[in-house]
């Protein structure tokens, strides 16, 4: 199979993005047709990723690595993008033109797919920029909202500063190893190697909004439409984690300090995310902090150094992304305040049940996908002899139950029934998208469980 055939999913996404951008010229009067077109494109891309991912190949002179991890991440990215675009086709973003949003979503998805298979520092850096550049615009998509633009600005500045920091680190990696290919990376165990790895880790951790690079997230989440955050906070992280797995695979054996960096970020993220989420009354702020906490679990698995770690990390990010997207989509529909969610069960019982499934999965209640995610993470920590880390993780999961259940309490047991937003539009497409998220949350854990416990399969 030729090199270009192996990136057929990315080419499909690019072509779809261009089509969607100019779809108004053809599909006059049908405002949301662009999102439907985009959903079909993303679904096709996921299918092509399935087809193009057989075996382990390194096209473009080993600049990309299309292996099991890349295939899983590309399929997940394509499918979740399709789900989000179906929702977008049903509801719109509330502001602005759907086709612009759909174009940006598709381009970010394209970047994420490249991030997942990057096997060369230059490709990794460029792909990360491709994946995050559209996100700034999506965060500030409501261009008349000052809070949204402020959040976008904070995100942009942090992301740019950390990208440049990472680039600085990569220049050391290049200088020490003499090649930009992952395979040729020789940074050595000295101070220079640790310095380079620390700078590279800063960039990757910031893209995942792990502590201490999380401070932009709550403001950005709360200022922007919940619907655009449903994409921004979930889909790009899948590929980001796979990229981090790959980078850790290359650099951690050479620089033992990398594991310390990952574990420090993990502990900081888990503690800070869960504790800071507690007092939040805006679902978007709450999800911002809980996102930080969940990335902490991913880093915990990866930093443990156990052989189970990479698989657990990659599975956990999926177990975070699906229900998290679901929560944000429900919040986009039914209100982002705990007050507006009050009495949701009387207003829309099915939507309240979906919310319950998502939140319980994020807590880690069996048999939902979140339970299996946490199980594998703690297994990895125990396997590496880091029992205290597993204890911290479990304790913080209990804390997280506190704030997730408060959202549920508002939705199910609040006596005050809030009024339905008047301009609320109910469409089947949006319900289908949320339904898919529910099904994935219910079934993914059970479906993936035998796959991951098989020895040697653990995604890599």
């Amino acid at each position, binding site marked *: 199979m030729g090199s270009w055939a192996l990136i057929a999913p990315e080419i499909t996404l690019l072509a779809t993005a261009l089509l969607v951008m100019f779809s108004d010229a053809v599909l006059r009067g049908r405002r949301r047709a662009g999102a439907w077109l985009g959903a079909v494109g993303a679904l096709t891309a996921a299918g092509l990723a399935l087809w193009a991912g057989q075996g382990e190949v390194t096209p*473009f002179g080993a600049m990309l690595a299309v292996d099991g991890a890349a295939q899983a991440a590309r399929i997940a990215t394509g499918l979740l993008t399709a789900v989000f675009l179906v929702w977008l086709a049903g509801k719109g973003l509330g502001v602005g033109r759907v086709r612009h949003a759909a*174009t*940006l979503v598709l381009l970010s998805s394209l970047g994420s797919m490249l991030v997942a298979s990057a096997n060369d520092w230059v490709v990794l850096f*460029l792909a990360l920029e491709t994946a995050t550049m559209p996100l700034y615009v999506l965060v500030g*998509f409501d261009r008349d909202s000052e809070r949204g633009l402020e959040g976008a600005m904070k995100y942009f500045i942090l992301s740019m500063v950390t990208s440049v920091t990472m680039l600085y680190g990569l220049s050391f990696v290049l200088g020490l190893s003499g090649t930009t290919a992952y395979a040729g990376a020789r940074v050595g165990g000295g101070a220079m190697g640790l310095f380079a790895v620390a700078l590279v880790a800063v960039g990757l951790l910031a893209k995942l909004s792990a502590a201490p690079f999380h401070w932009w997230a709550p403001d950005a989440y709360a200022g922007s439409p919940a619907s655009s955050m449903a994409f921004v906070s979930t889909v790009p992280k899948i590929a980001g984690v796979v990229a981090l797995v790959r980078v850790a695979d290359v650099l951690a054996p050479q620089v033992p300090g990398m594991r310390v960096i990952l574990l420090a970020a993990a502990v900081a993220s888990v503690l800070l995310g869960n504790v800071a989420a507690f007092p939040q009354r805006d679902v978007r702020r709450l999800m911002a902090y809980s996102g930080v906490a969940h990335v902490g679990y991913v880093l915990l698995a990866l930093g443990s150094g156990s052989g189970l770690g990479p698989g657990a990390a990659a599975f956990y990010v999926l177990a975070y992304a699906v229900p998290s997207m679901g929560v944000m989509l429900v919040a986009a529909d039914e209100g982002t305040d705990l007050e507006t969610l009050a009495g949701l069960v009387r207003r829309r019982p099915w939507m309240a049940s979906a919310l319950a499934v998502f939140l319980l999965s994020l807590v880690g209640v069996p048999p939902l996908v979140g339970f299996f995610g946490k199980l594998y993470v703690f297994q990895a920590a125990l396997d590496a002899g880091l029992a205290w880390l597993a204890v911290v993780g479990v304790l913080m999961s209990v804390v997280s139950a506190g704030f997730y259940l408060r959202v549920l309490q508002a939705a199910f047991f609040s006596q005050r029934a809030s009024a339905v937003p008047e301009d609320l539009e109910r469409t089947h497409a949006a319900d289908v998208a949320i339904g898919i998220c529910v099904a994935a949350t219910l079934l993914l854990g059970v479906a993936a469980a035998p796959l991951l416990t098989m020895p040697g399969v653990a995604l890599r």
Partner: protein
Amino acid sequence: MPDHVSIVPFAVLTGAVVLGAVAMMLSRNVVHAAFWLLEVMMAVAGLFMLLSAGFLALVQVMVYAGAVSVLMLFTVMLTLRRREDAERPLDLSAASFGLAFAFGLAAATAIGSLPGARVRMPAHAPGVAEFGALLFSRWALPLEIASVVLLIALVGAVWWTGGEDR
């Protein structure tokens, strides 16, 4: 390739770099300072040409002389309201001289600590044509990704600045 560069163009270009930098520091008007900086960047591009680094000279002109200095002039244009705001004070205190001296000393020490071995010029310096051929063969994929990044920036800028559909 010769191991020496001719003295006359080297002296002219080095003089232009050093004098331009001094003039930039001494000019009170920030717009004048920006233009002196532009002159320094062009002279550095000339030094690159002298060392047969054609592509580096091209990038120097396009990125630094082109984009960066224009960015500075735009910043000046958009942030200064009145003509008098463009005047900046010239700091001649002992502290500023001390700082400049310390920086110079540090730079001289760093350069002095480099191994003194004479570096031979390579027999053949790759030119822009070879660079281009490599860019569009081995590095075609990163080039295409970079073009997608630019496309995204364009779409985003159009969305944020576009007037319709408010």
